[in-house]
């Protein structure tokens, strides 16, 4: 036989894939982050920590750090309480319509929180908010009932959108928990209160903690709500101050340095929170008793059944229906501030935004094309990188595994800043003010989603499936084509939509990178609102909501069909 294949050429293929994977992650994620660190710590060609400390002690930077801490802790506490309570309610009690309630509590995940913040601004801003005005007009109060431009207001709004992190984790843990653990405690003579305190809560604690750390991570890096509700009252957190510094100062050296120092703090905090979450999850592993669904014992609510159901309905009505309705109603007003009566309402705003106004038409087009491109590119890059990490035995994989962790711990505003540093012409390529710089940033921002979905799918593909194909006579590429790709396809599709939908409503990254003609939907909604074009802003937000809800339901349908087939 002459067809002897020597080992060199096969190692070659692996090396190429490994090199490609490393190159993608280095260019897209590592270089921007590195440039941020470099700019933060490297002053006039020398390593300088004292200067970093100096920047951090400037009043506005210091205040932003404190604010981030206050807001993130506040949201974490309230979100954890709300999420745990509702999770317990829909899994461990005989609350009516539990299934429906469970689905409804997940809706806030779907809605962009900055659009929610806009709605609450319209309802509760101190002077012109509809609810505040109603109270002042009807009851003759001389001040607002509730001022949303406060720490409390921001925490409230963020809680509404972030509590599902805890809700999902805790509901999942409560459902998976082996009921015999509780039953055996009961047999040993413990009452329900003791069981809850001694058995249930300790077992669910890792899930609660892990969920609340996720809330903290998101809140720490959250831009939209604080930008909409805080800036008016002078409340900045880290991301909004980075935005302010970069955006207002048109790239002066001092402001970029402040930005990079803040970004460094954000990255370190995020990495720390993720590390903590990992530890909590691995410590809590003992309690996960198989993925099976048991029938847990339910607490009979008796007289509280109906009141608690009404409470849930009121919560959903207040946090989901009311703001959504407000957006659509304000979007239909002829002029902002008019009462909601038939003669003040028109569909013309929607028509204008969709078909006539170049600015919004551009924004919609930009978001859709950017979303599609980012989703497609990130999906394929994610498959390749995950394949190398999960399946290949090749030297140097450790570097890739480390690089693969990076996207998870780099918040959006950090990526945006890093991308500005890397692609603004300083290193030969100038993408500033073009859609390309936004595309690069999107790829970096959503790489984590793609890696997660694709490696999960790849881990399902056992090595023996590929080896069986090889033993059947398939070459490496035939085995990939006939076995690996078909089995990973659902993961790839999931990755695509996991990226496309959030990209459609993206604000944090695009707001720092947009140029005159490269607004995205999120940027357009935000800037219109800032410019006082509240009605058009609301109308565009309404359209965005329609697109998002439509997209989500298409995917749900798609995946149900896919699972049956």
């Amino acid at each position, binding site marked *: 036989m002459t*067809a002897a*294949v020597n080992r060199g050429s096969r190692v070659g293929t692996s090396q190429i894939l490994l090199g490609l994977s490393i190159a993608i992650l280095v260019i897209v994620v590592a270089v921007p982050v590195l440039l941020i660190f470099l700019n933060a710590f490297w002053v006039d060609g020398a390593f300088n920590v004292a200067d970093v400390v100096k920047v951090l002690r400037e009043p506005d930077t210091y205040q932003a750090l404190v604010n981030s801490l206050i807001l993130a802790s506040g949201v974490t506490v309230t979100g954890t309480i709300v999420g745990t309570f509702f999770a317990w309610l829909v899994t461990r009690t005989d609350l009516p319509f539990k299934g429906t309630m469970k689905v409804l509590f997940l809706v806030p995940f779907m809605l962009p929180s900055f659009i929610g913040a806009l709605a609450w601004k319209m309802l509760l801003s101190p002077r012109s908010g509809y609810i505040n005005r109603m109270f002042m007009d009807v009851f003759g109060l001389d001040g607002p009932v509730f001022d949303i431009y406060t720490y409390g207001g921001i925490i409230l709004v963020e809680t509404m959108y972030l509590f599902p992190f805890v809700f999902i984790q805790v509901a999942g843990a409560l459902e998976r928990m082996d009921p015999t653990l509780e039953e055996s405690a009961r047999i040993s003579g413990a009452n329900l209160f003791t069981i809850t305190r001694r058995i249930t809560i300790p077992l669910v604690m890792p899930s609660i903690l892990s969920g609340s750390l996720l809330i903290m991570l998101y809140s720490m890096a959250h831009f939209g709500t604080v930008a909409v509700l805080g800036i008016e009252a002078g409340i900045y957190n880290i991301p909004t101050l980075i935005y302010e510094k970069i955006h207002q100062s048109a790239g002066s050296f001092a402001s970029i340095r402040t930005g990079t120092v803040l970004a460094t703090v954000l990255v370190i905090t995020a990495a720390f929170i993720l590390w903590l979450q990992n530890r909590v999850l691995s410590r809590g592993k003992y309690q996960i008793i198989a993925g099976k669904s048991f029938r847990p014992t339910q607490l009979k609510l008796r007289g509280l059944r109906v009141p608690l159901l009404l409470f849930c309905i009121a919560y959903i009505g207040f946090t989901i229906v009311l703001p959504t309705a407000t957006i659509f109603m304000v979007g239909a007003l002829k002029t902002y501030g008019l009462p909601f009566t038939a003669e003040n309402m028109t569909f013309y705003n929607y028509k204008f935004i969709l078909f006539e106004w170049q600015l919004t038409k551009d924004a919609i087009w930009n978001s859709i094309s950017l979303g599609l491109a980012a989703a497609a590119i990130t999906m394929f890059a994610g498959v390749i990188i995950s394949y190398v990490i999960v399946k290949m035995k090749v030297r140097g994989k450790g570097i890739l595994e480390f690089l693969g962790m990076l996207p998870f711990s780099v918040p959006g505003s950090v990526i945006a800043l890093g991308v500005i540093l890397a692609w603004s012409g300083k290193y030969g390529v100038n993408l500033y003010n073009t859609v390309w710089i936004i595309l690069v940033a999107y790829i970096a921002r959503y790489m984590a989603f793609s890696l997660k979905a694709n490696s999960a799918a790849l881990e399902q593909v056992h090595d023996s499936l590929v*080896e069986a*194909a090889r*033993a*059947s006579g398939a*070459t490496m590429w*035939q085995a990939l084509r006939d076995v690996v790709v078909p089995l990973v396809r659902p993961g790839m599709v999931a990755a695509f939509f996991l990226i496309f939908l959030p990209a459609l409503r993206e604000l944090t990254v695009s707001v720092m990178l947009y140029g005159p003609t490269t607004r995205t939907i999120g940027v357009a909604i935000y800037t219109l609102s800032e410019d006082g074009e509240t009605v058009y802003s609301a109308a565009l937000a309404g359209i965005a909501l329609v697109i998002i809800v439509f997209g989500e339901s298409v995917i749900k349908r798609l995946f149900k069909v896919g699972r049956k087939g």
Partner: protein
Amino acid sequence: MADVRIQGVAKRYGDRAVLADLDLVIPDGECFTLLGPSGCGKTVLLRLVAGFETPAAGRISLGEVIVADAADGTMVPPNERGIGMVFQDYAVWPHMTVADNVAYPLKLARVPVEDLRRRTQAAVEMVGLKGMETRLPSELSGGQQQRVALARALVSEPRLLLLDEPLNNLDANLREEMRFEIKSLQKTLGVTVFYVTHDQEIALGISDRVAVMDAKGRLRQIGTPEEIYERPADAFVFGFLGLANFLPVRRDASGWRVGADGPAWTEAPPDLGDETLFAGFRPSDVILSREGEGLAGTVIRASFLGAMMDYLIDVGGTSIRAALNSHDCLDKGLMFAEGEACRVGLAAFHWFPHTSLEDAQ
């Protein structure tokens, strides 16, 4: 023509040597089993033959073809070795129907459609899956999935069939049934079979010849099932082929006795050049009596298991197991209670030198 020749093969993972200087020949048409404890490197050897691993030294040839040679870097990829393989976890492709799974090797070989259909059908019927051609693996039981894997491995009429613990994940009844089926398929098709397992019953039941490998990847004995069961080369082989008792027999001033101060051993053992030898025997080879001839012992534990009585007996400080037919025990008054004295005779036993016991258990 499809004899497997393994010459001086070695395999290392990092610093850990899994196989070293291993020689093995499997003649064409033989059903050959490699038996060994888990983690001993037997699967590595199978994967070396399949082409999923590259030898660090040595040469492997299938028939006339050298498929791997560490000396000149020859490495024929698995898809060009003309083998069929069945994996421990079946490795049936979940997105393909039974027929698609089985037809895949033929499709790759570009067999004409008519031919492909006929041969696929024949293979499906051969493993008893007729009528399930359009099912997906998720709609099949574990045993049925393993049949699909078997049909897929055989459909292209490979020269060599490699089986990697294919029956491990099946329950006991199914395992027995599949064992007979693999054996009869092998006889009908005349394919060379290289079977890897840690289950001595399968190995003895299915093979023309068995090789026993120890935990360090060394071959201890190669022979027919009867040979290795009746004439084990050493204590390891004896211990691996079933429950085994080892009684230490020591020479002292007055002759031979069990343990340090146990009962005397009347018949002198063969000269193995050792002061301490081991008598190895199966629990079923123990003959118990209340008094008379035999080694004096004490019953430590008596368990009634239905058809059998299982006794744990102390003989001169060593615990041995004895399995007796329950009817016999009842008839002959041999239902011992714990703590009772007994006499132990042996229907058959083997002598093993002191050194050979060290890695036997």
